[in-house]
């Protein structure tokens, strides 16, 4: 390994090796023989994203740094940055609570603050790297069409990730000190989950309340007149993205200084936080008060009830679900505001519901189907193996029905046709996401499922594109059922592609 033993470089090399192997495992779902397919899929995805980028931002490549451009770019930067904060907070929480090698490190005579400094820096690097697959195609297109000045956007990504990590670490430490180790785990996960969604959702609700539309751009444009002068420091990040060297230098300087300050403050105390976090499992006992009597049940019902109980008691899943539910707040407000006055709002509502159902079903299915703490117990039970998977799927379907039934019911009163389309779309999108997670299942304990990235990247992307496809189908179907065949075929192609890419099942255990 590079560097002197125990030095920051040596720790960085160690972290890099672990991160690289972790990334490889994520990309290939733990099967090295799938690496070539994974690389091909990544290349296809990158090419596809460049086309998407050309379509979306190509016309802005020559944009001058006027106020309208600065407002639009700043909006995109704030949204991306909040998502980065969310990602950084998730990583920081994991670093605090995951035991993995902490016992070994804390028991060693090495200067652990160096390792923790490297670990915080690694969070910043990983946040930047995570942003690249989505950000790079857009920047590349802008460079290709608008010149080298857009290269500054890459520097801005690095600066944004540094600032996001500094804020995330600061927030997590503040929570840790303020509300204690046990509550921080749950609260930090919830905050991380909702922080990225908050900006979009806030803008949508403001747009609905002000203009009766879900389009958030209208709010940004309405604030245009109130925006500061273009010379204001507020626009520095946007100017940096547009190639202003001084602005980039300023933003990067402040961001990296913030990160350095946080590392200097937190790294020496990181070990103490980790030790405190490790103590909560041993010291906390959660009492559950339930009716004493056992209920009459069948094996299938017992499996379903177990899944619901575990889903309900999983803080990570609850935070993820809460985020999905937050995306439903704008449609709910829209429904409330525009009830019985069909002004085209339902046309927007249907795909939002379908998309949310697909994503929520995917998340739940992934955890319920792949996460099993006692696989031998259920496999040794006198029930056919297919019962076990069926019960898990039924548990997921039950939650989806519970969440979306009120929306569909209210919509049915206002517009039966839209309700019918939404109902069908929700069912199909949820079924497709569940099927994808079923094909890509990889059994592990729930405690190892702190993040969805443990699952195959193929599954995650396929599930997202399938949900988008079914949402588009529902949107078109709400207006014209015949035309909906085209997006439906595309969505079906995504699902079929996922099936073809899925690993073949292992020989079944008796």
């Amino acid at each position, binding site marked *: 390994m590079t560097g002197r033993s125990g030095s920051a470089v040596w720790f960085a090399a160690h972290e890099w090796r672990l991160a690289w192997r972790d990334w490889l495992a994520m990309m290939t779902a733990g099967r090295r023989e799938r690496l070539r397919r994974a690389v091909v899929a990544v290349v296809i995805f990158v090419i596809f994203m460049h086309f998407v980028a050309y379509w979306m931002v190509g016309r802005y490549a020559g944009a001058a740094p006027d106020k309208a451009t600065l407002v639009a770019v700043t909006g995109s930067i704030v949204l991306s940055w909040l998502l980065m904060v969310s990602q950084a907070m998730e990583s920081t929480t994991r670093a605090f609570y995951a035991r993995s090698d902490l016992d070994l490190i804390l028991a060693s005579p090495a200067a652990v603050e160096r390792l923790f400094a490297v670990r915080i820096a690694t969070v910043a690097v990983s946040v930047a790297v995570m942003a690249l697959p989505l950000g790079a195609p857009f920047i590349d297109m802008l460079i290709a069409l608008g010149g080298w000045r857009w290269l500054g956007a890459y520097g801005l990504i690095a600066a944004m990730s540094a600032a996001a990590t500094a804020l995330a670490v600061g927030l997590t430490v503040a929570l840790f000190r303020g509300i204690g180790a046990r509550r921080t785990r749950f609260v930090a996960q919830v905050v991380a989950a909702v922080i990225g969604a908050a900006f979009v959702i806030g803008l949508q609700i403001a747009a609905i309340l002000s203009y009766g539309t879900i389009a958030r751009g209208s709010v940004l444009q309405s604030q245009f007149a109130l925006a500061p002068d273009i010379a204001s420091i507020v626009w520095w990040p946007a100017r940096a993205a547009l190639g202003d060297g001084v602005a980039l230098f300023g933003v990067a300087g402040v961001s990296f200084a913030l990160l350095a300050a946080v590392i200097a403050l937190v790294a020496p105390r990181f070990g103490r936080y980790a030790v405190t976090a490790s103590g909560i499992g041993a010291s906390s006992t959660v009492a559950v008060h339930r009716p004493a009597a056992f209920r009459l*049940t069948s*094996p299938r019902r017992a499996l379903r009830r177990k899944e619901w109980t575990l889903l309900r008691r999983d803080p990570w899943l609850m935070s993820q679900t809460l985020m999905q539910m937050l995306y439903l707040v704008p449609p709910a407000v829209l429904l409330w505001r525009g009830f019985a006055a069909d002004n085209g709002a339902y046309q927007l509502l249907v795909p939002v519901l379908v998309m949310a159902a697909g994503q929520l079903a995917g998340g739940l299915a992934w955890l319920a189907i792949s996460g099993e*703490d006692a696989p031998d*117990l259920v496999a*040794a*039970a006198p029930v056919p193996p297919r019962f076990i998977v069926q019960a898990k799927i039924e548990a997921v379907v039950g939650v989806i029905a519970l969440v979306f039934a009120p929306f569909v019911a209210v919509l049915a009163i206002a517009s039966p046709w839209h309700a019918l389309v939404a109902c069908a779309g929700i069912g199909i999108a949820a079924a497709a996401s569940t099927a994808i997670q079923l094909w890509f299942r990889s059994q592990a304990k729930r405690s190892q499922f702190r993040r969805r990235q443990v699952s195959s990247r193929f599954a995650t992307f396929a599930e997202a594109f399938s949900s988008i496809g079914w949402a588009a189908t529902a949107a078109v179907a709400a207006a014209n059922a015949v035309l909906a065949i085209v997006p439906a075929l595309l969505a079906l192609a995504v699902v079929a592609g996922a099936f073809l890419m899925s690993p073949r099942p292992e020989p079944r*255990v*008796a």
Partner: protein
Amino acid sequence: MQHFAPPLALEITGLVKRFDRPAVDGLNLDVRAGEFYALLGPNGAGKTTTLRMIAGLLRPDAGTIRVAGIDALADPTAAKRLMAWVSDEPMIYDKLTPLEYLEFVAGLWGVEPAHAQARAQDLLDWLELAPHAQQRCEAFSKGMRQKVALAGALVHDPHLIILDEPLTGLDAGSARHVKSVLRERVRAGNTVIMTTHILEVAERMADRIGVIAHGKLIAEGTLEDLRRQAGTGPNKDATLEDTFLTLVAAPAEAA
């Protein structure tokens, strides 16, 4: 005088399982009803693979397994109804309480709720888990988790209890509890088949001991029988450890 052999709780014939090499290689094994049978062997001998095949967690490449006369490969559901499986790693859910866990297991095995509840309460009392019955298992020690898993295995009153290293990592008190529960189950007429590396436990508790090496049963019987088979026959002071090491050394030397 006519002798009636007790019915067989478990009958294994020609069992084979290969991974990259044969893990179990033509194993024949009979365990009588009401018997405590200890399966010993060095690491990698095929003990766990054998037990996982009996429990229906692994499909053999060849051979037959009959549980109380039921063909476990042809009708695994019927066979599983009679069995319980406990591994060295407790199979419990962190987010469930012991009581909820037992209710879940009883539901899986289709036990009538009133009966299951009474049985669960007895087991929790017996295993000194009653004060923790309403607490989630996530904060439990290894010993407590293993006791919860054992309670789960017993809540449906299985005829055949299969245990893979159930005492691993347990403190003396917890280990004594587990052993006393197993003894009681055998007294009640159940059959226990258990692997262990703690030879003293096998020596004290087992009616018969089987020694497995390279996937084959190389010796079987009471401690006296094993001494005879190992060639340490006249030496009454030869412990099971001496006998076991002599037995497993022979095939290794032959290999």
